[in-house]
């Protein structure tokens, strides 16, 4: 495994004399993984995202992206080119007057020749399946479509990491599926590394790895099955268990012991089936 991001003993606060929003945070992000970061509102997740691409700088500790330190002024553009963020509100990040213009924005800023730019635009727009909408104005697009355009704008710059900062929380269920599906394809086909900051625990259950934040600290980290074993801890810090695990836990309290933790309904029904075969 190749480490893309290394966060070392990072503390951060927005103003002096204000409490720390992040306290001695350490974590690493591996190439090609889907990392979910979960935590209650105000636990420091979004602040962390902004530290990962140099929008914010740590007060203490270091953030290294492919070896570039965000404290180093000359590195900051290297970092921002490598780490793209899709934010929560689809309307706040659409800067162009059409899909094409919007995707071009970042490329223009990077001073790319026109020919190459057009090529990149058409390539990225295809990857998020928005090629039929090139000349559409933003207000004719749904929230999910706008977020996919935001993703296209980011991948046009060929980053190694895309951060979704609650990028689906303002979308309806169809829009949410659309965006996640797009990101899963990019991960699979392009080997994109994805960091997803989310309240959606069903989504987190499908990640390769989960990091749990509480009050500015990383309090747990591991495979979804291992993190979700600690249901009581998650509930104590204001999170929930995915539905299949809640059912399983309630059944366990009634004396039905399962071998396997089931993260999906399908697994749960299978487990119930195995259980009644044995009894």
């Amino acid at each position, binding site marked *: 495994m190749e480490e893309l991001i290394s966060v070392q003993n990072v503390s951060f606060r927005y103003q002096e004399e204000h409490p720390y929003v992040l306290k001695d945070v350490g974590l690493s992000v591996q190439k090609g993984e889907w990392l979910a970061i979960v935590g209650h509102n105000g636990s420091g997740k979004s602040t962390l995202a902004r530290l990962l691409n140099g929008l914010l700088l740590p007060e203490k500790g270091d953030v290294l992206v492919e070896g570039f330190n965000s404290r180093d002024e000359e590195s900051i553009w290297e970092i921002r080119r490598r780490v793209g963020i899709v934010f929560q509100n689809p309307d706040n990040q659409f800067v162009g007057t059409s899909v094409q213009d919007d995707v071009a924005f970042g490329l223009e800023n990077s001073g790319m020749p026109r020919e190459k730019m057009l090529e990149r635009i058409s390539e990225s727009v295809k990857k998020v399946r928005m090629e039929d909408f090139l000349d559409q104005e933003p207000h004719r697009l749904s929230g999910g479509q706008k977020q996919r355009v935001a993703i296209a704008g980011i991948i046009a710059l060929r980053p190694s990491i895309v951060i979704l900062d609650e990028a689906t929380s303002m979308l309806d*269920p169809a829009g949410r599926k659309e965006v996640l599906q797009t990101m899963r394809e990019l991960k699979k086909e392009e080997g994109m590394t994805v960091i997803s900051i989310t309240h959606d625990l069903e989504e987190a259950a499908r990640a390769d790895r989960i990091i749990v934040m509480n009050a500015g600290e990383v309090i747990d980290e591991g495979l979804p099955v291992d993190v979700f074993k600690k249901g009581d801890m998650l509930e104590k810090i*204001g999170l929930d268990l995915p539905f299949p695990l809640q*059912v399983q836990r309630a059944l366990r309290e009634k004396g039905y012991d399962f071998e396997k933790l089931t993260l999906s309904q399908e697994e749960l029904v299978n487990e119930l089936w195995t259980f009644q075969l044995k009894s």
Partner: protein
Amino acid sequence: MDISVKELEHSYNRGTPFERNALKDINLSIPSGTFQSIIGHTGSGKSTLIQHLNGLLKPTAGSIQIGDFLIRAGEKEKRLKALRKHVGIVFQYPEHQLFEETIEKDIIFGPLNFGVPIDEAKQRAAKLIKQVGLDESYLERSPFDLSGGQMRRVAIAGVLAMKPSILILDEPTAGLDPRGRREIMGLFHRLHQEEGLTTILVTHSMEDAARYSDNIVIMEKGGIALQGNAEHIFADSDALKALSLDVPETVQFIHRLEERFNRTLPQSVFTLDAAVDAALTILQKEERS
């Protein structure tokens, strides 16, 4: 106050090349004291519909009767201000609308505007701040030093301070963490019961709609595609799928159990406990047989 919407139609930019029909042929009756959910994709007309319920938008055809207020296309209802006192709307991300120096001032702004004496408005604020889960010490603080979830509670208190008898909630839990979501929905459920409110919830959560509603309306392209109680709405998962909507996860679970175990199970399962009970009946029966 009963609500009765008849043949409501609304088009934006009427008479211009940009004319767009946002609502058509809406017929809906919401009896006083009931909990009504409205579900539908973005752009299906939900927000346009609720803005008619306190006169923010006027119908281009049809009528809306709320208690003895009547809003009809082409006519002026002169008592809109009085109507708005009865109908409180918690808009999406209501925390964006906070503006006062202190939380107390923000909460009493609405009541003062409607002529409530300042002492009474302050009493309401003191009571409401606790009802939304914060304590009185917050009243003197600036709303802008709060977390997003707390700001939302303050904004909700500001709407409740008008003592509406009809409370309209436009995706009140969007962007909150799971505990925040549970607490806010718990608050609205309690208020609904204790204050005898008529509650109208616009939501994407099938689970919330199933759990709390007396009636559910599903909107599609500006019209009503389905309406009825949760049992009725979620009995036909194919109809929902055709509208690209899901059934609640409890209902999905029941369907999966039925299929796998080739059994018929109770259908209106909308809570975790009921889902667990269904799983238990299967495990127990299979053990005995």
